[in-house]
């Protein structure tokens, strides 16, 4: 009940909070935060890269939780929520990979590394892309499609730690030249800016997820209304 009330407030709270936080984050990241000694100014990409990664985990967690709730309650609003969150998760995963690449090129000299975290992120992207493709591209009865996609989302989500572990073992067997760590221990100011950035991006993610859920709910409502309208017309004729 309380959660419902909080959810009602989303349009009033999230957009302004997210907007303000993001502007603050930009200022902090680009101006206030101290320049890192070893990597230079490019290191500031940490303030968009790390929050994007965390935002994507946040979004996919919501997808997994909503999938469980859908299977338990069979209420389609949870299926819509899962889909809305998944799209947002994919966007942030893509942003994580892109910002990571742009950070990697000046630091490591290459746009890509087969580092366990990066590789796992790519596989994460594939899994939830597959989830959305499976959910959307079907001429089958949507009840089944929703159920099965929910199962896939749950298995996919649970598989992530395993994938990370196995890729790490794979990498230690086939070592590459040593790469610079992305997060050397952060001095306090940088830590604060990082935390603030994470907060800002998670607010944006939450906002986008609510928008995504709204989109999915409207789509479903539209389908139902079309069916009713069709039935009415054929009744008349």
């Amino acid at each position: 009940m309380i959660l419902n009330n909080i959810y009602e407030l989303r349009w009033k709270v999230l957009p302004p909070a997210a907007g303000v936080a993001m502007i603050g984050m930009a200022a902090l990241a680009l101006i206030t935060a101290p320049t890192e000694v070893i990597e230079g100014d490019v290191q500031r990409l940490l303030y968009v890269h790390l929050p994007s990664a965390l935002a994507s985990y946040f979004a996919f967690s919501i997808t997994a939780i909503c999938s469980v709730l859908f299977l338990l309650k069979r209420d389609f609003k949870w299926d819509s929520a899962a889909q809305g969150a998944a799209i947002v998760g994919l966007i942030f995963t893509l942003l994580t990979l892109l910002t990571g690449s742009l950070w990697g090129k000046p630091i490591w000299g290459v746009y890509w590394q087969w580092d366990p975290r990066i590789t796992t992120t790519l596989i994460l992207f594939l899994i939830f892309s597959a989830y959305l493709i499976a959910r959307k591209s079907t001429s089958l009865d949507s009840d089944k499609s929703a159920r099965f996609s929910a199962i896939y989302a749950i298995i996919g989500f649970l598989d992530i730690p395993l994938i990370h572990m196995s890729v790490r073992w794979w990498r230690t067997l086939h070592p590459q030249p040593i790469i610079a760590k992305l997060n050397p221990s952060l001095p306090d100011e940088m830590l604060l800016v990082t935390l603030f950035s994470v907060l800002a991006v998670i607010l944006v993610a939450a906002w986008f997820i609510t928008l995504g859920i709204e989109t999915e709910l409207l789509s479903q409502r539209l389908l139902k209304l079309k069916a009713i309208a069709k039935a009415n017309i054929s009744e008349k004729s």
Partner: protein
Amino acid sequence: MSEVGFLFAGFAVFWAGLFTYLVILQVRIRNLQNQVDILENTIDNPDEI
């Protein structure tokens, strides 16, 4: 590209990505809402078609 160039490219990608997605979502919601309204109208007032 200089180091700072990559920095700005990274931030640009990030912000552009978020803005683009926001715009897409808003447009889609508006379209869907319009269609829903039209259909609801049609169903509630069948004689006005």
